[in-house]
């Protein structure tokens, strides 16, 4: 059965799909949580709207892991 799958399906395509899918999932959840907590912080205390720049820093940090996953699909042959 494994032989059958490996011979008929191009497993690299499967691997790339899994990489992009799961690799994008984590950062997406992280960015959603960051945005949600930013919005709740601003609605509790409107003065904390000034932390938007800080928010982008953390978004970029979370994004890095998604980008690593996305870049890895070009290494899979």
């Amino acid at each position: 059965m494994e032989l059958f799958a490996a011979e008929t399906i191009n497993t690299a395509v499967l691997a790339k799909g899994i990489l992009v899918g799961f690799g994008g999932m984590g950062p997406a959840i992280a960015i959603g949580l960051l945005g949600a907590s930013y919005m709740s912080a601003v609605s509790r205390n409107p003065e904390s709207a000034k932390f938007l720049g800080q928010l982008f820093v953390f978004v970029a940090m979370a994004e890095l892991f998604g980008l690593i996953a996305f870049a890895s699909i070009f290494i899979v042959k």
Partner: protein
Amino acid sequence: MFNLFASEGPHIAIAPEKLFEVGGLVITNSMVYGWIVCIVMMVALIYGARKVTIGGSRGPAQLLDAGVEFFYNMIAGSLGSESRARKYTPYFVTIFFFALIHNWLGLLPIVGKPFTYDDTALFRPFTADFNGTLAMSITAIVLIQTFAIKESGLVKHLRHYFAGSLANPITYLIGLMEIFQELTRLFSLALRLFLNVVIGEILIAIFAYLGGTFGFATAVPFTLMEVFIGLLQAYIFVLLSVSYLSVAIAHSHEHEETA
């Protein structure tokens, strides 16, 4: 009809491609574009810096003025004093404009397919080359270490890593982990900038390819997004470097306040 969606895909290169060799030294396309942009940038920034005046600048020099002012305030806020901001602003503003101009000029349509040399693209953004961003982050980390040693002295700087009683073996373990963290910072700074730029390039290439004949139009939203991301990543590179510096010199700062 279906050849329009061929499985071939656009040409995607994660690494810079070799153009030619000069005496055994490989010249890649990102190096060529890096040199060109550096010359343009030096001319523009030196000319712009002469135009900046005390009582408000005019024209494009306003951008330089506003950028320096913004980073001066940010650095003063995060390092805790105006004198330190005056000392460290020049380097951080330079690295910001360096990254920003490389990111933005990398989006010009002349980069990529239009000019080729031996079937490889002649130009490639310098920040879309891991060697380039790694060089930037190595410079940043080395300078931050130098600044921190100058600020607090070598022994005190090392005590910043090996905090706590020196008789306790766990202190050394934690200190080694803290030093290892510097390496993590080095690579995460470089990888963040590199991956954001190179994946932007890839996205633009993919959507220009999917658009077929209308490729120039389908790539526009992603190009606009890349303009924003280029600015954001340049800002984040500087912001993270400043915060690493502020963590590294935090000890001497506390001491100054208590004394």
